[in-house]
């Protein structure tokens, strides 16, 4: 990876309580201009990692530097200042349901800038044009399909041209066409706007198609990393299980439980 990373996570640990760590000793570096995937099964800690990068959660140990700033040392004002350089696409879009598509995209411009209304109008239409939904500007979020809502949310997240884009499960619950559209937009917008993007996902094929580098997280640790090509060739059992979607492997099918016989015997005595 290149030097002067946009995001640098060093030996970060995090837990909601001391007994159970969600992340332990995680390190990663994200180079400017790249699209990086953070992958792993549900509940492995990847969204927690994204929340630490966004300044939502404070790392219990270690350092999280984002856009040259140590996040854990920031107060609320500092975090808001940092977030103005970031955009985030939420899993289901999280559009404001009481506003039109246009107003959703204009939201940040109106909140953070004093741009005149006609300039806001032009900028919003440009953002919507980039995601192919200029014609939907006057619709309400309830009138959009899931894929369209995700694209509007993408236009909204990009409204002030953030340097760093965070995607939280951007492909979940989309039909193949919408999924392909979103995936292509993530890549093309990243490259054309000179951004850096972090995609948290468990969709292997879609993610591998657009990212430059992947970190695999399992049980709160980075267990493998590399380019998609390297990871396809890797013989690490975890990566193989994840990439091929096998039921059993290093990640067991069963949630930890006492012995089956003991549980059945206990139930018989209830």
């Amino acid at each position, binding site marked *: 990876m290149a030097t002067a990373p946009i995001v640098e996570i060093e030996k970060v640990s995090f837990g909601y309580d001391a007994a159970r760590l969600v992340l332990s000793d995680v390190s990663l570096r994200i180079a400017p201009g790249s699209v990086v995937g953070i992958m792993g099964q549900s509940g492995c800690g990847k969204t927690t990692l994204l929340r630490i990068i966004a300044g939502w959660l404070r790392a219990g140990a270690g350092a999280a530097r984002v856009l040259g700033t140590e996040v854990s040392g920031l107060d609320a004002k500092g975090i*808001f*200042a940092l977030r*103005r350089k*970031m955009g985030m696409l939420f899993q*289901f879009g*999280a*559009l404001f349901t009481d506003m039109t598509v246009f107003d959703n995209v204009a939201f*940040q411009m109106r909140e953070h800038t004093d741009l005149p209304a006609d300039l806001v109008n032009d900028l919003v239409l440009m953002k919507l044009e980039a995601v192919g939904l200029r014609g939907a500007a006057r619709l309400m979020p309830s009138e959009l399909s899931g894929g369209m809502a995700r694209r509007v949310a993408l236009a909204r997240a990009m409204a002030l041209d953030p340097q760093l884009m965070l995607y939280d499960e951007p492909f979940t619950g989309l039909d193949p066409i919408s999924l392909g559209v979103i995936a292509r937009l993530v890549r093309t917008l990243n490259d054309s706007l000179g951004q850096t993007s972090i995609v948290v996902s468990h969709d292997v094929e879609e993610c591998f198609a657009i990212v430059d580098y992947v970190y695999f997280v399992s049980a709160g640790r980075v267990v493998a990393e590399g380019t998609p090509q390297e990871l396809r060739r890797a013989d690490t059992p975890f990566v193989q299980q994840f990439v091929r979607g096998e039921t059993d492997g290093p990640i067991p099918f069963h949630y930890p439980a*006492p012995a089956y016989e003991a*549980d059945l015997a206990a139930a018989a005595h209830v």
Partner: protein
Amino acid sequence: MSEPMPPAGPRHWVENLGHHITSKIWRLGFAARFFFYVLLHSGTALRRFGLTIREIYFAGVLSMIIILVSGLFVGMVLGLQGYDTLQRYGSGEALGVLVALSLVRELGPVVAGLLFASRAGSAITAEIGLMKATEQIAAMEMMAVDPIARVVAPRFWAGVISMPLLAALFSAMGIFGGYLIGVRLIGVDEGAFWSQMQASVDVRNDILNGVIKSVVFGVAVTWIAVFEGYDATPTAEGVSGATTRTVVTSSLAILALDFVLTALMFTGGNGQ
């Protein structure tokens, strides 16, 4: 199950009771901090007053129908019941005073407050709770916009502004209802009805005290509503529970506060 059964018995009950009470007190403290935080971050709501006006429409204007209709019926019932009692003592002309004082001092603020809690308070809680459940609040924070300033404070001030106006409308409509029944239907002398009311209802002791009550109820109901919404567990169950709690807690708060305020305002006689 593999986990041991929880210990039953008096010690367990006491522990549970203690835990229950401590968590309630903790939550009350959290609500108090939330209240001060809302006040501190009210700059946006007051500077960009359009945001608050929009919420006044949803909380206040859309509550008008229920307030006006209820006020009319409460006033008409007061007219019937009041006349029935008063005429036994030969003072049927005092009906206007009875209707006006009951409404301005008590029924206006209290019933309008209860209706406001069910109509607007529940809507505010559900809206904020659903915004949280659908990550709209999180999205706003991610866009470096403080949701307390942008979402909560305008709704809070809209409620505080709307409530006294709704209580006033309720009282006015109630007096009109009492007039319809007393004067138009029963035949109480119209001049006596209005002039006795005018002579007996005091601006400071009756009307101002009623307005103070309705402002206090407005603060209480809207505070409870925004807090419950913001604190709701972000699930369908959590939002429905929060909405119910808003209506129950704010109704109880209105009745309890009404007793306290009445005790402070009216004991010792008018003007003392």
